[in-house]
Every structure is written in structure tokens, then in C-alpha cells.
């Protein structure tokens, strides 16, 4: 037997049988329920549902209204936090847009105007030059000039104010937590699951409790932003500190450093370049979140996009969207440059000679401040000179829609009928009971019974929360999107790795794609394909494509030169070299890319709820509009659990492959 079919292993049998069983049950679950008259087969019995929503809402009520920690109430605590965030935020808003005033409404007296647009641009140019060189300074300056010329200045400054407040808090907080985790192993162990949740629970889910605790407005938006943007900084900090060579720490100890000196004079300075990568991430995530958080009253560019979309003002939406893109590129390039910055010689001389840049900037700020009093154009970019591209974009979109409507429609129909609907039917049909078992079995097979039990329990939580059907929609949409993203992304990654010149273009494009706030992806998709699962899928694919490409390219490039040479000397054709040498060795990296793709897809799915999907994202979104904290958190946790299960399984696959390859 084994000689006849040498390729059929127990492993293959397991997967085939599991899939066949699932498929059979999925097809016949409805018939089964009718035949046995057992509705529980397809629907989790309502009376056993966990009343988690109620508990959470009651708990929040108690927290807000009665919780008392001896000296202060919980409400005092949230108010204190609110002040810490709001004061700097308001100062920045005054500085950048509103100007400083006393009194309210009619009696308001202007004390000082806001910074002139010229001054702001001077500052960012100086920052760009400080971070790297004139080229970067020019790029950043042009980006901000674009914001002024195209009439996005005010919204952009509101967004910038939010970013400028959230980033220091997120970065410093992340650094502090990371240092604590580095120094105390128990804290590290306690922190890890919290970080996992913070990164996988969709933001909308904790927006509601935050709204309840902090009220509708910019503070809530900023709190949510900080929670969202901090975890990567914590992780990067831990990694960066661990990556400091042991000898450098020993050198510090032998020099007689105290524990505090080791941290601040040895570890943190040595790790600074890596830490700056974390800061870059914090900035980009903050921008991403600030845009989304516009919905709960932060205002700014995201709000413009959202309101344009609601008015079906296509041109306005694209215009504001482009402003976000421009801002993202400016912030990303500048903060990246900081992480690659070389240490430079301190200058000597008098104050101005030592600080020519700061000096110039101060002069420009003061100069424009005085000049702005007499020449309004210096203070505010003159409206008459703004250019609007909105009509152009509207016309372009209309042209595209008129000329290509049929083509798009055809593509959409083919994919819907051929892929989306069958997959949806498959997942929707799986009886919840079997679904739990199947997920448990998969996890068990991949990484042992511990993960199996955990995965089954997490799935059971989803079923018991009455969210099984929506969870299946999430899994189906995520699955299809990830599949397509992988099918597009891996070949692109291979291409990028094999052809260096194409690689520069492709990877550069992916870098830019990844810096764009997720919200931006919705704009063109909705305009071309309107709302629905298909649009959601396209947006998710666009958002989640980058890691698939990058990791594939990285994995292929990391294949040891010697092995490639060995393959060549064995007489491999380029095709054989790719399939038999490079790809197998790159599998762990490709799997890690898949993992990232899944994570990004899930986080994007929640946002695509805005374009009308019927999945867990929608559940979260509904909870947000109804301000039902319990509902939002339960649905959010469900998304997080799916993410965690997928993450553990794919990681285990990657690890297993690594072990087999002995890497």
C-alpha cells in the first residue's frame, strides 16, 4: 500500500477527512436541522447565551457612577487623565489653528494669533533637514505646502495637533512599559496577553467604553489613539533592549553603573536607532487612528473624508484623502529619517552659530508673527490662491464610471459568483458545534493539544455570545481577501526578489501603501464598486497586500547565497532554482507574511463595516452608534479571538517549518 501511494501520509489523510467532513456538514446542516427538528444545530440556543453584554454595561455603569478608590472616585481619575491630554491638545490647537484668546463667544479677545502657515512650513523644513538632508526637507516642505495650496490647511492642522499630542504620550508610555517588561520578567509575562488584545481588538470596540468614560470629543479620540498606537512601541522597546549586545551591558556594569545608569546611559542610548523605528510606528498608527477617530469628534482630515463620502461628494473625498496621503508620507519619511540619523558633531561658537537651524526657525516664527499682523496673507494662506481639485476628481471618477462601469461590474459579478458566494455559503453552513471542534482539531494538529483546547474555547466563546453567524462572515471575508492578497502578493514578492530593479519599484510602492491610513483605501473602492462585500474585500486586499509582498521578497533574498550556488552547480534551471531551492527555504518567512496579512485584513475588515458588511465589524460598528459598550466589547473580543487563533496557528506552522529546515 505504502509503495503504491507513497505521497499519502497520515497528515494528508487528516486534512482531507477534516475538510470533507466540514464540507458535508456545511452543505447539509440545514437539512439536518429540518430532519431532526433540532434548531440548535445551526443556531446557538438563545437561553444559554452568555449575558456578557449586560455584565460589561453594568460594570461600566458602576465604574462611572459609584466606583470609589478611597481618596478619589473613578470619575476623578478619568477627569484627571482628560486634563493631562486636553491641556496640551488645546494649546497645540491654539498654536496651530485657533490662536490664543480669553473670554468666550462674543467677548472673546484675541491674545495672539496662531502660527502662520509660513512658520509651520519653516519648522517642518528645519525638522526635515535636521533629520537627514535638504532633499527630505524639500519633500516635507512641499507636502505641507500642498496642504496649504489645496485648501486642506485647517483640517490638516487639527489632525497634526492630535498626532503631536498622542505621539509623545504613546512613545514615552510605550518606552516606560517596555523598560519595565525588560527589567521584570513577571511584568513581561503579564503584559504580553494585554498587548495581544490591545493590538487585535478592533479600535471601534473600545471606543464605546472610552466614550462612556471620557465623553464625546477629542479626548476620547486621543485616548483611543494612544491605546491603539502604544503596543508596537512596547514591543519594539523590549526587542531593542534585548538586542543590545550583552558585552555592552557588561561594559556598563564593569564601569560601575547603577541599575538606573545601565538603563539610561547604556541600554536606551545604544538602542536608540531601533527605538526610533518604534516611534515611527507610533506616529503612523497614531495618524491612522486619528483619521478614524474623527468620527467621535476629533475633527480634522478624516472628518472631511467621512462627510464628503456621506454627501457623495466624490471630489471632496478624494481631495481630503490625498491630503491624508501627503501628510502620511511627510510624517513617515521624516520620522524614518530620524531612526537612520547619524550622530553628528556638536558645533561650536555663539548661540546662533551653534544652533543655526533653531535660530532661523525662531526668527521666521517671530518674523511671520509680526508681519502677519499687517499682511493677512502671511498669517493665513489666502483663500483666493487655493486651488481645488475637487471638480477634476469628480469628473475623472465620472468618466471612469461611465466608460468602465460594465467592466467593473463584470469583474465584480464573476468574483462574487465564482468565489465569494460559494465560500460564504460554505462557512455560513458550518454548524457551530462542528466549527468549534474543527478549529480545535486544526490547532491541535498544528501545535499540540494546548493550542487545540485554547482555540476551541475561544471559538466556543464566540458561539456562546450569539455571534457565530457574524463571525463566520468575518472569517469568510477575511479568508477570501487573504487568499487573493497572497495570490497577488507572493508572485509580486518573488518578482521583486528576482529582479532588483522591479523590486525597488514594487517594494517602494508597498512601503507607501503601508504608511497610508486604512481609511484612505475605502475612498476609491466605494467610488468604483459602491458598498457591499466585494468593495470590502478589495479594500482589505489593498490594505493587507504589503506584508505578503515584503515577507516573500525578504524570505527569498535571505536564502543563503551558497545554497543558491549549490543549486546552480547542480544544474538547476532558474525555475527549478526557484521552486526547489528558494521557495522551500523562504516558506517560514512567507508564512510570517501570511500571518501579518491576516492580522491587517482583520483590522481592516472592521473598518470596512462602514461600507456595509454583515460581519463582526458591523456588530462593533452598530454597538458604537448605539453606544452599547457591552455589545461592542463582546464583538471586539470575538474579532480579537479569531485573530489570536489565526496568529498562533500560522506562527506554529512557520516555527515548525523553520525547525524542519534547521534554521
Amino acid at each position, binding site marked *: 500500500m505504502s509503495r503504491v501511494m507513497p505521497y499519502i501520509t497520515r497528515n494528508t489523510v487528516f486534512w482531507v477527512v477534516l475538510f470533507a467532513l466540514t464540507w458535508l456538514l456545511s452543505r447539509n446542516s440545514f437539512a439536518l436541522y429540518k430532519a431532526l427538528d433540532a434548531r440548535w444545530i445551526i443556531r446557538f440556543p438563545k437561553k444559554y447565551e452568555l449575558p456578557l453584554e449586560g455584565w460589561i454595561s453594568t460594570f461600566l455603569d458602576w465604574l462611572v457612577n459609584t466606583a470609589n478608590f478611597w481618596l478619589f472616585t473613578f470619575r476623578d481619575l478619568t477627569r484627571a487623565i482628560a486634563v493631562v491630554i486636553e491641556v496640551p491638545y488645546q494649546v497645540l490647537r491654539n498654536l496651530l489653528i485657533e490662536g490664543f484668546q480669553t473670554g468666550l463667544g462674543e467677548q472673546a479677545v484675541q491674545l495672539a494669533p496662531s502660527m502662520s502657515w509660513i512658520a509651520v512650513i519653516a519648522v517642518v523644513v528645519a525638522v526635515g533637514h535636521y533629520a537627514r538632508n535638504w532633499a527630505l526637507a524639500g519633500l516635507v516642505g512641499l507636502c505641507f505646502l500642498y496642504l496649504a495650496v489645496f485648501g486642506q490647511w485647517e483640517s490638516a492642522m487639527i489632525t497634526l495637533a492630535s498626532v503631536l499630542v498622542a505621539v509623545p504620550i504613546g512613545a514615552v508610555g510605550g518606552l516606560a512599559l517596555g523598560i519595565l517588561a525588560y527589567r521584570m520578567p513577571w511584568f513581561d509575562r503579564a503584559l504580553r496577553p494585554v498587548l495581544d488584545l490591545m493590538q487585535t481588538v478592533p479600535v471601534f470596540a473600545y471606543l464605546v467604553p472610552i466614550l462612556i468614560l471620557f465623553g464625546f470629543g477629542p479626548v476620547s479620540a486621543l485616548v483611543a489613539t494612544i491605546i491603539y498606537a502604544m503596543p508596537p512601541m512596547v514591543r519594539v522597546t523590549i526587542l531593542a533592549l534585548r538586542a543590545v*549586545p550583552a*558585552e*555592552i551591558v*557588561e*561594559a*556598563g*556594569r*564593569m*564601569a*560601575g*553603573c*547603577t541599575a538606573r*545608569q545601565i538603563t539610561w*546611559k*547604556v541600554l536606551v*542610548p*545604544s538602542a*536608540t536607532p531601533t527605538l526610533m523605528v518604534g516611534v515611527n510606528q507610533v506616529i503612523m498608527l497614531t495618524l491612522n487612528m486619528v483619521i478614524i477617530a474623527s468620527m467621535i469628534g476629533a475633527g480634522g482630515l478624516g472628518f472631511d473624508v467621512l462627510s464628503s463620502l456621506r454627501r457623495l461628494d466624490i471630489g471632496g473625498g478624494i481631495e481630503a484623502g490625498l491630503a491624508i496621503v501627503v501628510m502620511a508620507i511627510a510624517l513617515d519619511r521624516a520620522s524614518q529619517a530620524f531612526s537612520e540619523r547619524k*550622530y553628528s*558633531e556638536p558645533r561650536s561658537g555663539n548661540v546662533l552659530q551653534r544652533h543655526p537651524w533653531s535660530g532661523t526657525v525662531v526668527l521666521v516664527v517671530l518674523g511671520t508673527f509680526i508681519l502677519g499682523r499687517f499682511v493677512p496673507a502671511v498669517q493665513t494662506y489666502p483663500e483666493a490662491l487655493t486651488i481645488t481639485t475637487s471638480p477634476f476628481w469628480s469628473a475623472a471618477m465620472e468618466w471612469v464610471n461611465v466608460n468602465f462601469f460594465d467592466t467593473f461590474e463584470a469583474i465584480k459579478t464573476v468574483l462574487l459568483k465564482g468565489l465569494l458566494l460559494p465560500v460564504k455559503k460554505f462557512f455560513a453552513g458550518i454548524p457551530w458545534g462542528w466549527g468549534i471542534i474543527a478549529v480545535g482539531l486544526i490547532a491541535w494538529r498544528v501545535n499540540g493539544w494546548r493550542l487545540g483546547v485554547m482555540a476551541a474555547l475561544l471559538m466556543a466563546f464566540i458561539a456562546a455570545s450569539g455571534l457565530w453567524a457574524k463571525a463566520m462572515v468575518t472569517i469568510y471575508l477575511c479568508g477570501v481577501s487573504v487568499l487573493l492578497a497572497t495570490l497577488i502578493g507572493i508572485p509580486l514578492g518573488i518578482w521583486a526578489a528576482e529582479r532588483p530593479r522591479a523590486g525597488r519599484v514594487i517594494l517602494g510602492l508597498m512601503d507607501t501603501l503601508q504608511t497610508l491610513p486604512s481609511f484612505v483605501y475605502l475612498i476609491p473602492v466605494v467610488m468604483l464598486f459602491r458598498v457591499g462585500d466585494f468593495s470590502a474585500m478589495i479594500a482589505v486586499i489593498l490594505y493587507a497586500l504589503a506584508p505578503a509582498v515584503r515577507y516573500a521578497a525578504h524570505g527569498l533574498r535571505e536564502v543563503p547565497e551558497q545554497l543558491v550556488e549549490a543549486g546552480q552547480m547542480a544544474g538547476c534551471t532558474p525555475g527549478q532554482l526557484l521552486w526547489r531551492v528558494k521557495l522551500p527555504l523562504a516558506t517560514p518567512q512567507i508564512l510570517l507574511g501570511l500571518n501579518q496579512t491576516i492580522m491587517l485584513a482583520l483590522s481592516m475588515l472592521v473598518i470596512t463595516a462602514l461600507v456595509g458588511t454583515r460581519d463582526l465589524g458591523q456588530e462593533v460598528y452598530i454597538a458604537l452608534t448605539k453606544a452599547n459598550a457591552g455589545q461592542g466589547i463582546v464583538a471586539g473580543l470575538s474579532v480579537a479571538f479569531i485573530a489570536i487563533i489565526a496568529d498562533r496557528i500560522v506562527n506554529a506552522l512557520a516555527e515548525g517549518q523553520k525547525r524542519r529546515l534547521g534554521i
Partner: protein
Amino acid sequence: MSTSVILDCRNVWKLYGAQAESLLAQNPAPDAEMLKEAGVIGAVRAANVQILKGEIFVIMGLSGSGKSTLVRCLSRLVEPTAGEIEFDGQDLLRATDAELIEIRRKKMGMVFQQFALMPHLTVLENAAFPLEVQGVDRATRETRAREMVELVGLKGREGYHPRELSGGQQQRVGIARSLVVEPDLWFLDEPFSALDPLIRREMQDEFLRLQSMLKKTIVFITHDFDEAIRLADRIAVMKDGVIEQVATPEELVRNPATDYVAEFTRHVARAKVFRARSVMEPLTADSFAGEVAHDATIEDIAAQVEGADAPFRVMRDGAAVGQITARAVIDVLVGRV
């Protein structure tokens, strides 16, 4: 050489593994078999070392022999599992954190294999780093660091960052940093292993030059037997966490204690190791061609002695203690002894 012991390390163990402590509590001297059974790795086993004031003590071993762990136990960068270490009359293992910091700030210096320079600091700031953490004011510490940088031959590069220097130059900075506090005990952990052979040779010469000026007590780690022989007053050979033999280079070559040590010494050029005093014979000749120092290596005096007609007088503290003949030198050179 004064014979006072500056660092006394008695029966020091460093075991890694979950059961390291309990195993040693049950049995104070487990052998390799017992360690393996308990799943414990014996990085350092029953190490006894006495470092004498002013000597260069080399710990030689191949990778994984435990030499780096041993030197880290001696400086307490690694906490030994058991044993006693006495430094300058003080029980090092009972020193509190604060005392330990004080000892390291004032009495110890260390040079690392990968240089371990702070990437964000300049040459001068790196050299001044130990003083900075002590809170010495900027002017004083920079003056002191400048002297050290000049001493190691990097004058003019004070403002460079480590990444702008070659490996050899980086290690010079590492040496300057370790010497800036004028330590009594100087640890060098494979300081030249990461360097090219030519640079390594140059750095060894530099090291000997520095030592002839500074007269420090040195614990030097290396995996290179030739380096050990070239620099050491005494050598400890380590294997699998155990010190196989502690001896002067010459004793090591003449009387290797174990097969393992013999394996290393077999191909060592005798002339580089043997000293005049050990191949001299009683004074019998009437006339001598000259004088040589009793501790000169045969390599150094070979040409001189071999080319003369009469034997040389071997001098110690101004007195002749023996004579050395061309014959004796040739015996050493061709490996007859």
C-alpha cells in the same frame, strides 16, 4: 614580582540548569556524569585560581571551555553557583550591590572581545564613560580620558564615533576606557580575537608596551595558545569547565599535566618559551663571550650565543648564576629538549 595574592578564587562552580543549586547542595563535587544526568551544564567546575599582584595571568581554553564564564565569575558579572572569591581582602561574593559598584568603579577594568563601545558616544566620551557614571565633573574626566586616548595612540581621533574606527582602533578605545579609572585588576576577555592576525600581533606588542609602563595585575582570556605563551607570566588551561593545569609557559611545555595540555604544547616552538636559566649549566668555562639575562628567551639570545666561540654568562641580579653554550641553544632550537 611580589607574591601577594590580589584575587583568590577557591572552588568556584558555575552550573546552568533548573537543578543547578539543589544538585550542588546534595553533592559539593559532582562529576561530569552526574551533571549530565541532572541536565545541568557545568560551565565552571571547582576552579581554584590565585592571581598574584603584578602578574599577567592568562586563562586559555577553546570555545565552550568555560574561560569566559570563569572571568565573569571573577568580576561577578555572572553569579557563581558556589565557591569563594576574595578580592583585595574583601569577600567579593558577599559584597552588596552598592559595594560591588564601588569596587568596579575604583578597582576593576575590563576589555571585551567585541569591544563593547557605546555606539552613541565619541572616542573621548567612551573613554570617559566610567568616570562619567561616577559623577566626575566634565573637565576632569575629559582631561583624564584625553590622556588615556593619547596613551593608546588615538590622539586626534577623540571626536570620532566607534563606527568610524577600524577594529584595532576600537579595541584601543576599549583599552583606554578600561584603564581610565586606574584599576588594580585588569580583565581582558579575548581582547584581540576579533582582529586580523597582523593587527593582533601589533596589539599584543602594544599591550606589552602598556604593561611595562603600568604594571597592572592582569587576567587575560584567550583561545590562542601562542598568544597565551607570548604574554603570560602564568597560564591556566581550561577544558570543559575544569582547569587542567596552572603553570608558567615553560613548565607547561616541559611538564604538561594532562594529554590535553600536551596536545597544545607539542608544536610550540621551544625557543620562544624556554628561558636562559632553564638550559644553563654550572659555570665551568674560563672565558665568556658575553652576558645574557636569566629570563631572556632562547629565541632572543640564540643568534648571539650560537655565533660566539665561548659560552655566555647567565646573569641574575648582577651575579653570574650559570653559563649557556651554543650547544644548549641548538638543542633547544632543533627540539632535542
